[in-house]
């Protein structure tokens, strides 16, 4: 089974802090994604990556950056945390092999981040 591991389940940080959320997958997947989930808004894509050192902006990249130095690890960075970034953050990965368009995404259990 694919395992996507997010380093923290719960995190509390202060306004203005630089925050790092880490995600590791063990299936050698090429694609990795960061979403935030808010009630009534569903999942919104922040950033995604097709390969090492490669990144693409999603729908809501403002205030965030990402890093993918190794294939298995995709980090989300809040440059200067603000209270409106309090949310559930979900990491996902998917394969680019075979028929990539029909490959499902596999999700971690999420990090619930509170910015005070």
């Amino acid at each position, binding site marked *: 089974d694919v395992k996507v591991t997010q380093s923290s389940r719960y995190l509390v940080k202060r306004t203005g802090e630089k925050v790092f959320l880490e995600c590791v997958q063990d299936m050698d997947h*090429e694609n990795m994604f960061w979403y935030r989930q808010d009630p009534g808004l*569903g*999942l919104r894509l922040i950033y*995604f990556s097709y390969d090492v050192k490669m990144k693409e902006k999603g729908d809501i990249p403002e205030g965030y950056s990402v890093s993918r130095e190794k294939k298995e690890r995709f980090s989300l960075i809040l440059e200067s945390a603000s209270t409106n970034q309090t949310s559930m953050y979900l990491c*996902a990965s998917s394969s*680019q092999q075979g028929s990539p*368009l029909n490959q499902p*995404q596999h999700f971690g*259990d*999420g990090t619930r981040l509170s910015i005070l």
Partner: protein
Amino acid sequence: AQSVAQPEDQVNVAEGNPLTVKCTYSVSGNPYLFWYVQYPNRGLQFLLKYITGDNLVKGSYGFEAEFNKSQTSFHLKKPSALVSDSALYFCAVRGRDNQGGKLIFGQGTELSVKP
């Protein structure tokens, strides 16, 4: 633009009754369609997908989904609901011209199954 709509925020069903969670989509060309389930304090789990072929797709935990091209719908169904099916359900779409792995998600439907 590609989009997914889940018209019901919440669906309430009695245990043992059939359930339907609705999803409609808008995408250029033929779509790839997915259903996910999210239990409290967990990530999303993949349930099933439609790529091509049979309009009725079977997935995990006894769920199935019916693809209807003329109505651009992909409703999730189960013949007999269980209390343990209570969760948040997401429909997602990927167009054939979409980049690699990107998915567009609906807003989610909260399913509540009462004993």
